[in-house]
């Protein structure tokens, strides 16, 4: 499926199969085309090419009102002229349901905001608005719930609460959810599967652990928070374990690649720091000096020489008394890095 919006942006060859009842997270940086893709699924834009199927029905030419999707925009797109209760009852009334009002009340209750029913939208806080938007979308019992960055304008505490709520709602109602975000940890927590979209292209689809540990391109790796991207070259390879020369140091890594220049991705949290060498056959050991330590909430980010970054808990950092100038051992498992072939020569 593809579509060109003119003005320099197009979605190209999106090929995506979302399973019924799954919680699918579409992850990508700003301006990747996430919103546009959701809008195409909802039927607000038609694809130039390709087809869209929803629940066994070809929906490519179906108008939005026939697609049985629910849409929650990032800013909720609530109707400024209606009360919260009227929002939820909106779709039910259109279906001529006489019990619209009661059903709406029940849904609001389920989302814990019964007290809002009679309130005008303008007087609601961001979090309350979001619940109303979700209730509105769920009221008509859609097959698919499309969520466009539903959490990004909430503060951390509310975000955490809402994540739980979203997961619960999805399980209880068995609805398929497509959730768009640019926040990795959000994707990680919520997703059954993740699709990574960048510059209008769907780069990778898979379960969270796979996507985060095995990104398919360097750009995706950077976006996904792989801070250690080290150029190297495979020296030898035996039984799926390759020896890679990383700028002088040889490390052992599990990979199906046999030779050639490669890029080695190591997530900073997969690097263990210690005062003494930990000697296990499966582990790779580097010695390095601490350049800088940044405490970020519960975590501390430790920048080492050679551009290696490790992420440890603040508590560990304090207990190990890590500070710039100290020499440490950095260890990682042979299974921790992910290796992809590198184009072009060394650098």
């Amino acid at each position, binding site marked *: 499926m593809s579509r060109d919006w003119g003005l320099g942006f197009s979605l190209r060859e999106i090929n995506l199969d979302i399973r019924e009842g799954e919680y699918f997270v579409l992850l990508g940086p700003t301006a990747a085309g996430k919103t546009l893709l959701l*809008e195409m699924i*909802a*039927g*607000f834009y038609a694809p130039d090419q390709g087809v869209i199927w929803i629940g066994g029905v070809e929906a490519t030419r179906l*108008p*939005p*009102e026939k*697609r049985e*999707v*629910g*849409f929650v*925009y990032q800013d909720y*797109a609530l*109707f*400024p*002229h209606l009360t919260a209760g009227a929002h939820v009852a*909106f*779709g039910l009334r*259109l*279906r001529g349901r006489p019990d619209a009002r009661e059903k709406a009340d029940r849904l609001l209750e389920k989302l814990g905001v019964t007290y809002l029913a009679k309130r005008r939208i303008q007087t609601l806080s961001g979090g309350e608005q979001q619940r109303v938007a979700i209730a*509105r*979308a769920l*009221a*008509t019992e*859609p097959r698919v719930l499309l969520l466009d960055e539903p959490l990004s304008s909430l503060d951390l505490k509310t975000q955490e609460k809402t994540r739980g709520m979203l997961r619960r709602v999805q399980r209880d109602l068995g609805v398929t959810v497509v959730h768009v975000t640019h926040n990795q940890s959000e994707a990680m927590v919520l997703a059954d599967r993740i699709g990574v979209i960048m510059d209008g292209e769907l780069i990778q689809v898979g379960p969270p652990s796979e996507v985060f540990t095995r990104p398919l391109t360097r750009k995706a790796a950077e976006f996904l928070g792989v801070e250690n991207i080290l150029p190297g070259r495979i020296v030898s390879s035996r039984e799926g374990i390759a020896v890679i020369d990383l700028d002088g140091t040889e490390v052992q890594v599990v990979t199906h690649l046999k030779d050639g220049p490669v890029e080695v991705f190591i997530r900073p949290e997969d690097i263990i720091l210690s005062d003494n060498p930990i000697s296990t056959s499966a582990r790779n050991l580097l010695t390095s000096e601490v350049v800088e330590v940044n405490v970020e909430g519960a975590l501390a980010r430790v920048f080492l020489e050679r551009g290696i970054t490790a992420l440890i808990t603040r508590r560990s950092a304090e207990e190990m008394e890590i500070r710039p100038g100290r020499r440490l051992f950095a260890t990682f498992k042979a299974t921790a890095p992910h290796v992809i072939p590198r184009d072009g020569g060394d650098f």
Partner: protein
Amino acid sequence: MRPKGFYIWMGAAGSILLLFSFVTIFNMIFTQFLDPMGLLGAITDSSVLASIWLTIYASILATLIAVVSGTPLAYILARKEFPGKRLVESLVDLPLIVPHTVAGIALLMVFGSHGLIGQFSPVRFVDALPGIVVAMLFVSSPFFINSAREGFQSVDPRLEWVARTLGADPWTAFLRVSLPLASRHILVGAIMSWARGISEFGAVIVIAYYPMIAPTLIWDRFLTTGLKASAPISVLLILICMTIFVSLRILARGDQS
């Protein structure tokens, strides 16, 4: 922090125009209040009241037509890009520059009893209410359409889209979402268009001297009896319409906050 000087100067510059309208209109009204008997005479003159009522009523009819046909037009102009859109927009605004008597003559050529449409029309336009209405409609439609278009432009199309996902077909989405949200602009547009219709003279007298709308009556009285007879009618018309106008605008603004 409080740029007093700035606002004082801005206010001073702005009040030139304000004073200009104020002095012009209120000079007339105040002068009339020195002659309350004249005003009383106008209030008790049934043909004066009939003509004022006719003016208000005809302008309401013209505005209704503008609303019924202009609202869809405004919606399309706000939402759709199509070849020739610039042309349509220009056509909408064109009545603005047509001199009023020319407009009257042009309307007569179309709606007169020998006109393009008038000759086939079972409805009589010349010297009849329909004639007044078409003349008012011609001069006032741009105001309505432009205001309604701005109203629709200010409605996020995504609200309509969301309504669609909730099961609304395009009509329902329009009626339940776009229309209520643009209602303030539509109301303001209707008020402006109504006011513009009230004030029209040049185009109306050409196509329909009779039945006399208030501006015609005022002119006629002015010519036959002089200012003494016409001024009280002017003042009465302005007071009545101003009351309606200001109340409606306050109503329309009230929505806003």
